[in-house]
């Protein structure tokens, strides 16, 4: 693998009304931030299914960022609170799985806070760069290989035993 130029891959889920608009504002204001982030637009941070986050990590994301409206400002009244609840639970679960805290982040960014998009992204890229690659998808491959080897091993070992039984 060409690892000398590794840079983090961050998948972000931004709500349509606040954070996505803030990222647009950062663009219109020509603020500059790291290019490691890939934004997926959803209508509300409440739409973020925990599976999206797990899936992103499993498919090779080094970090996941969720952006929603500030508490009390949700376009859909309280979707952001629902996200916050899931975030808290999921964060605990991820740390049990060995995924460091800095790899999963929830930020409230209002439509006016283009500057915050910039600082959050840059800060996150710096922290995740320091942590190094997560590369779960590669690990999965290794684990899968290990499993199939193990399976194979067990099969080849148990096969003669079966024969013996059959003979008796």
């Amino acid at each position, binding site marked *: 693998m060409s690892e000398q130029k590794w840079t983090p891959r961050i998948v972000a889920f931004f709500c349509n009304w606040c954070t996505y608009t803030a990222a647009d504002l950062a663009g219109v204001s*020509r603020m500059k931030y790291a290019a490691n982030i*890939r934004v997926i637009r959803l209508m509300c941070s*409440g739409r*973020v299914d925990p599976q999206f986050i797990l899936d*992103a990590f499993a498919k090779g994301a080094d970090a996941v960022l969720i952006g929603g409206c500030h508490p009390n400002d949700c*376009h859909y*009244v309280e979707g952001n609170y629902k*996200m916050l609840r*899931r975030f808290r639970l999921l964060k605990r679960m991820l740390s049990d799985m060995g995924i460091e805290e800095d790899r999963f982040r929830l930020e409230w960014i209002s439509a006016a806070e283009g500057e915050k998009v*910039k600082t959050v992204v840059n800060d996150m890229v710096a922290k995740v760069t320091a942590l190094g690659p997560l590369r779960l998808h590669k690990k999965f491959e290794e684990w899968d290989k290990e499993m199939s080897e193990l399976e194979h091993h067990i099969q080849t070992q148990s096969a003669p035993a079966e024969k013996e039984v059959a003979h008796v």
Partner: protein
Amino acid sequence: MENKTNGNQKKEQPRIGFYVCHCGHNIASMVDCVEVAKYVEKLPGVALSRDYKYMCSDPGQELIAQDIKEHKLDRIVVASCSPLLHEHTFRNATEKGGLNPFYFHMVNIREHNSWVHTDRKEATEKAKSLAHAAIHRVRHHKPLETKRVSIDQNVLVVGGGIAGIHAAMTLANAGKKVYLVEREPTIGGHMAKFDKTFPTLDCAACILTPKMSEVGAHPNITLMTYSEVVKFDGYVGNYNVTIKHKPRYIIDDLCIGCQDCIPGCVYKEPKFLDDFNEGLGKRKPIYIPFPQATPQLVVIDPDTCLQLKTGKCKQTCVEACGDKKAIDFTQKETFTEIKVGTVIVATGFQTFDAAKIPQYGYGIHKNVYTSLEIERLVNASGPTGGHVVMRDGRTPRSIGIIHCVGSRDERHNRWCSRVCCMYSLKLAHLLKEHTGAEIYNFYIDMRTGGKNYDEFYGKLLDEGVQFIRGRVGEVTDWAFTPEEEGYLIIRVEDTLAGYVRRIPVDMVVLSVGLQPQDDAQAVRRLFNMSCGGEGFFLERHPKLAPVNTFTDGIYLAGCCQGPKDIPDSVAQAGAAAAEAMVLIDKGYIEQEPNTAYILDEECSGCKSCVPLCPYTAITYDDARKKAIINEALCKGCGTCVGACPSGSIVQNLFEDEEVFSEIEGVLAYE
């Protein structure tokens, strides 16, 4: 479950058309568009991949429509600017080519990419991965229908300043029913307090008060003063509004506006600070804010009225009212519920609190005034009848006007309040006219952009008003020399002359800036709007949708959106009224079909989703043991979808498989 409408062959191999836009140099300078197009061409399912200079132009849109027919495309992806800007444009182009518009997906490589990154290689890689995600995603798109929502014909205008008045009048003259809600006892707003208006020196009352009485008398306007919106819900075209009417202790229908009760009050002399006159004058507990107040109704202030405070009063006002019997001390708050289709928010501004800059001495030295106080002082209907008399009873012989108080100031408000230079010039002119005093203006920069504004500045220079360029350090009564005794000394660095000066004056005027109302945040939440960082309400687009908000059917007018002068407020009010009329006259609005629905066969009836919906769109059918979503109530946030443990709720446009394939796509590049 997904091939109800599509043939199976489409599932096997879509024919995706991909377009990457150069946006002139906006994208092409940072993203190698040709390389992106080449990369996408090789992705499975892509039948056509092009780069083009301006996709949003007519030929660009035509290209999509043409290609759909010629190359039998069945999905379209455009990588260009933000979908919030041009998603509709390209959906229309897709539809024009004969496809369902929702077979389109947009990739943002301008706001989220070329404009914010500095490395061409990285930006190009990012564009590729985002395009990859869209190609993955778009194959799962379903044909959808937009929802049509009917629009209630009535309009709510919140705020009765010049912006609200103008918007209400425009709509009412077009035959629309308007509810105009104002929290003060009278409409008129800040403009009613002004004496003259720049640069023409029109008398503010002469141009405003006829409009006010027109509003009061207009058959299409229901005027609700001394009232506030307390509850607001519903959705575009069908908003439910609850309005609270504060008690005036006067029965509206019986009061004829004769004002006999005011001299009848047990207080023989006016004793209480008069808000309308910025506390410079006095009023009685029963009062009318100003002579031309609309509606012409008196108000009783419960905080100062003896009867209301103590219950022990001779009630001489009731005697004075006589058989009209318009005074009712038992009045309580009342509430009205109305239904409207659209709303214009024109809640205005407040001025900066000058006491926050103690070195300017407001509230410390009594001859320091705010500009709004001076407006009342030079006004013929003001507390002094238009005579400029200071708090110590003298007429000023020299006056210093300090610009940018609270504006363009890192410690207070960063922004330029836009009107202060011009109103300072106007006040300089009026004060000179009234007193003949020597007038000094202390400015940072003179900002007199506007029709005939700079000419007005020239006129003031000719009149002999002094202009000193520099931000004032302090206003003090500490005299250094005997000549300074008894004066207020303005200490300022004259940046044109290059030294610090001390200028003794009799009176100081602080040109306070404009800022959002204290309760702007509460109003914003009530109407589900956004605020900019400075607290003014945020328009949908600074250039192309300056009166729209992010909530459909809610429009902005006047200074609640940002500081502006009267002509701009009126122009914006007219624009907001026109936008509201677009919806009303069309009669319906097409809504995004991003609502959620339940897959009956999958729903286990766990009820997890039911309490999550803030719009109570989800109910539980006890008989069938399944949840049901009422599509009319669903606003399409997707919170229930994210929470459903069995994955049996689907959100149109944001289906699970669409998002999962997008995740896969953004991570697919090496």
